[in-house]
């Protein structure tokens, strides 16, 4: 498939999904849609956006290390369609890996001289990062959001009637025991 057309199709699909999620989300939970889009662009970014920055950065480090290890095995080349069509599509799970695949994918991946048997697992490592990112994207839709600051409704704070005696302050705590000094 043409590389420019792939970009448009994948990006269009993610944006359409984001719009659908925003439309279906409840009022006040629409930022989940933005987190969903960010999570696709960079693993863990959605969690960071929703305030789970420790978890998001840990996930980014974990996925980044996995991707780099896989890329190192296959000579810093992305998975091409000829290598394995399934692994190739798996890269689309993350915008970062997809972008790197478009940049690095000019040349075909090749097995390292010292460990030619590692070639296929290396392609798997690169692909798994994209597939695991799909799980993280779905997880952003399931995270508990921090509660928004609640405004005090005006109706619950009743103004005292003019001329009315003020209420005595309620006693705080139990009455002092006999024989004790204050």
């Amino acid at each position, binding site marked *: 498939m043409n590389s420019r057309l792939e970009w448009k199709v994948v990006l269009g699909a993610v944006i359409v999904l984001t719009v659908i999620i925003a439309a279906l989300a409840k009022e006040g939970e629409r930022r989940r849609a933005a987190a969903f889009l960010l999570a696709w662009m960079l693993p863990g970014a959605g969690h960071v956006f929703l305030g*789970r920055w420790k*978890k998001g950065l*840990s*996930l980014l480090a*974990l*996925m980044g290390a*996995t991707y780099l*290890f896989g890329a190192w095995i296959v000579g810093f080349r992305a998975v091409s369609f000829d290598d394995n069509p399934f692994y190739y599509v798996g890269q689309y799970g993350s915008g970062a890996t997809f972008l790197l695949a478009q940049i690095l994918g000019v040349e075909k991946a090749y097995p390292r001289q010292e*460990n030619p*048997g*590692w070639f*296929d*697992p290396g392609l*798997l*490592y690169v692909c*798994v990062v994209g597939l*695991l990112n799909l*799980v*993280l994207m779905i*997880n952003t839709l*399931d995270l508990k959001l921090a509660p928004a600051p609640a405004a005090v409704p005006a109706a619950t704070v009743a103004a005292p009637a003019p001329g009315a005696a003020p209420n005595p302050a309620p006693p705080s705590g139990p009455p002092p025991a006999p024989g004790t000094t204050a």
Partner: protein
Amino acid sequence: MKGLSYLFLYVPIVLVILTVLETCRSDDPVKILKRSFANFGVLTAVLIGGGAVVYLINRFL
């Protein structure tokens, strides 16, 4: 043995997958690591057991 060295790549990738899946379930890092390693042990035991059964069947039956 060098030809089979790619089998060692099974360990990190499975640990990464299990850790990410556990991270989605829990917020406690200690719990995440404990459960990941426990699941890894079970998965590996099942894999080795299944491999042994298949080997024995092919060898003796």
